[in-house]
């Protein structure tokens, strides 16, 4: 038990936290972008799965990991576009459109994978990302080595967090996005193209979700399994609420989830006598508890969930 307080343990835990949190950070940022513009994208789980599968497939076929990531992002964009067509252009219920996309994308991912690989006894693998150690920063005592030996995608995630904050709060586009999410009618009457804004947010949000999924098959593991996403898309949805629709706070939530995920693995290896499955449950339970704490003061974008159509009113 005392191993828990061992440097190696803590170091490993920090590294694991970052790793486990990365896909969720991508997914959460992607979802924040959509929801800030007023669209709840429940297609996230399916988009991540398609991203995971596409990334794996393209990497397997071309030998290039980054091309796989790029392909995953493209697929995410296409699915984001589909979501936009359904829920923004056609104004269908966001709940149902999103769930439909998750179901469709899940089926499609499995279908294409099966088409390409069949059902071999030994699952195909790819050469995954290798962790990269950042030169100077890794010398920081205690946390340095663990914190700054990560996959490239993780470093990218770190950069995306402030980037998204800047986008939302300090740019003209960000103000437009936020206004569309809070008062689409208001945005429209000021000349902001609500449809275009929402569509672009869904498309780029989808790209981030796709990359998040690809991380799981190209870095975290190096193969594709049907349950590779394991509900992380839904966790991201919860993290958006937890973080009050703010990129930084949502990332903190993702880190906490990653921490619990990483802790659960490590505690097992240390021989803690708690059933494995109870551990697996903990992150999800904690997310629910976090939501309870947060729901009271939630700063929901006021335009969330409302399709926007101009000619509804008569006279």
């Amino acid at each position: 038990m005392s191993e828990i307080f061992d440097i190696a343990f803590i170091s490993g835990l920090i590294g694991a936290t970052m790793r486990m949190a990365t896909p969720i950070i991508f997914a959460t940022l992607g979802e924040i972008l959509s929801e800030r513009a007023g669209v709840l994208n429940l297609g996230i789980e399916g988009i991540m799965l398609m991203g995971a599968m596409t990334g794996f497939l393209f990497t397997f076929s071309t030998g290039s990991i980054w091309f796989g990531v790029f392909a995953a992002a493209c697929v995410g964009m296409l699915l984001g576009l589909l979501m936009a067509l359904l829920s923004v252009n056609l104004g269908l219920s966001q709940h149902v459109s999103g769930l439909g996309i998750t179901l469709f994308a899940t089926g499609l991912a499995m279908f294409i994978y099966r088409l390409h690989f069949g059902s071999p006894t030994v699952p195909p693998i790819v050469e995954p990302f290798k962790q990269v150690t950042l030169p100077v920063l890794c010398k920081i005592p205690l946390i340095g080595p663990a914190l700054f030996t990560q996959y490239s995608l993780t470093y990218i995630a770190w950069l995306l967090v402030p980037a998204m904050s800047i986008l939302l709060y300090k740019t003209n586009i960000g103000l437009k996005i936020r206004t569309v999410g809070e008062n689409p009618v208001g945005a429209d009457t000021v000349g902001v193209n609500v449809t275009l804004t929402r569509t672009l947010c869904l498309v780029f949000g989808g790209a981030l979700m796709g990359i998040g999924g690809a991380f799981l098959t190209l870095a975290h593991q190096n193969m594709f399994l049907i349950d590779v996403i394991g509900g992380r898309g839904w966790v991201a949805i919860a993290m958006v609420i937890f973080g009050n629709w703010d990129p930084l706070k949502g990332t903190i939530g993702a880190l906490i989830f990653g921490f619990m995920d990483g802790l659960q693995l490590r505690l097992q290896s240390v021989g803690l006598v708690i059933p494995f499955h109870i551990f697996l449950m903990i992150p999800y339970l904690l997310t629910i508890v976090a939501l309870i704490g947060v729901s009271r003061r939630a700063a929901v974008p006021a335009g969330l969930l409302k399709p926007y159509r101009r000619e509804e009113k008569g006279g």
Partner: protein
Amino acid sequence: MANNDQPAVRMSSVTKRFLDVTANKDVSFSLYSGEICALLGENGAGKTTLMNILFGYYTCDEGEIFIRGKKADLSSPKDAISRGVGMIHQHFALVPSQTVLENIIVGAGSGIFLNLKSARRELLGLQERFGLKIDPDTRVWTLSVGEQQKVEILKALYRDVDILIMDEPTAVLAPAETVELFNTLRSLVKEGRSVVFISHKLNEVMDISDRIVVLRSGQVVAERQTAETNARELANLMVGRELLETIEKKELPAAEPVLRIKSLSALNDKKLAALKSVDLIVRQNEILGMAGISGNGQKELSEVLFGIRSPTDGFIQINDKPLKFGSPTASIKSHMGRIPEDRIDTGLLMDLSVEENLILENHSSDDLQHYGLMRSKNIQQFSDDLINRYNIKTAGGDAVTKSLSGGNLQKVMLARELAGEPSLIIASQPTRGLDVGAMEYIHQRLLQERERGAGILLISEDLDEILALSDRIVVLFEGEIMGEAPGATASREQIGLWMSGVKA
């Protein structure tokens, strides 16, 4: 004043249809620079629709629009704004959680990054020029309605709008704020801009406009220079007949109180004080008119009575029995007829049938159900009966409620709430947004209920309505009762002062 070579705006033979309603029929409308033109007509006449077309919010089915002589193809507000046309709708297009500055500059910035500094400078410059002083860094939800309207005007000016359309701007203003608004508008047109002033309020239209265009049932019926007409003529043109709402109120003796409110305090949704220790009495056979601009606590007061908001202090008695707070069922059981100000969102189930709406409060009665099973025949009878008695124009009890017109929607509300002959009626903005015919019906109904013995609390922004119907008048300002006056002898001036917060 008006300048005539070329109209700033010319709308020619504009027609606009929605599903089964023709909102604008072959309308031709011109606007000249340097003038304030009023677009007058009762609710539902098509004024807002017409201007929405000019603003690019709607597209017309037939007709053409010329702005400064050039044909304008407007498919979105963006196009209109780029041509210098701006519109301020009745429900403001602001984001309450954002600051004034953010609200004003959204969509108008150039470059990637927000340049708040230069925007602020420009804004302050505008404020100086037009006397619309508001701190750019306050959040909009903290502002009063009048101040929010100023933000809307600044938004338009920031975008170099010189054709400004205002839709019922004074509906939400206190008399003093209306004066300020009118001064602002006059200074705007002095520099050659034009203003379209949509309204159904005759006195204000006479006061502020240079020219008046009257719409009725989607068509232009008249055009007058303001100086050459009068209120009576305009009223007749608006409604198409001699406006003869004569309200005959019977003298009825003072009776027992039905409603007693003591020391009632409550918070609004922002957790600020909305009601501050209010005392009130309503008696049988009486209409107590509560005048005042929305936003001074009326909504919260009605919500407490309706049972959908819990007060922080005080008590309420109905027919000498204490009212349990926070329970719509308790309010219903206390024989209260409740007419909420937002009939669509709060009062009615728009996607359900008329019948299903009529039974909402009664569906558990022994008459309409039996061990949890609905008795369809009785329900149908109940509903048909109400549809007849209240003259609700509908295809039938199973017509979907949202297909009804505004006036008929309110009749459904009335039928539901008054059928049980309540001893207390709370009517909050009951005629808002309705045409004259519907308004008359509701006024008559309220008077009938008064004669029957009900005590009525009438909350309304429409001072004419209050003055015509009330036996006593009180004014609510910032959660406090400013004063009380007998209906027969109350003076507009006095009430206007109370509405602006001036006591005694």
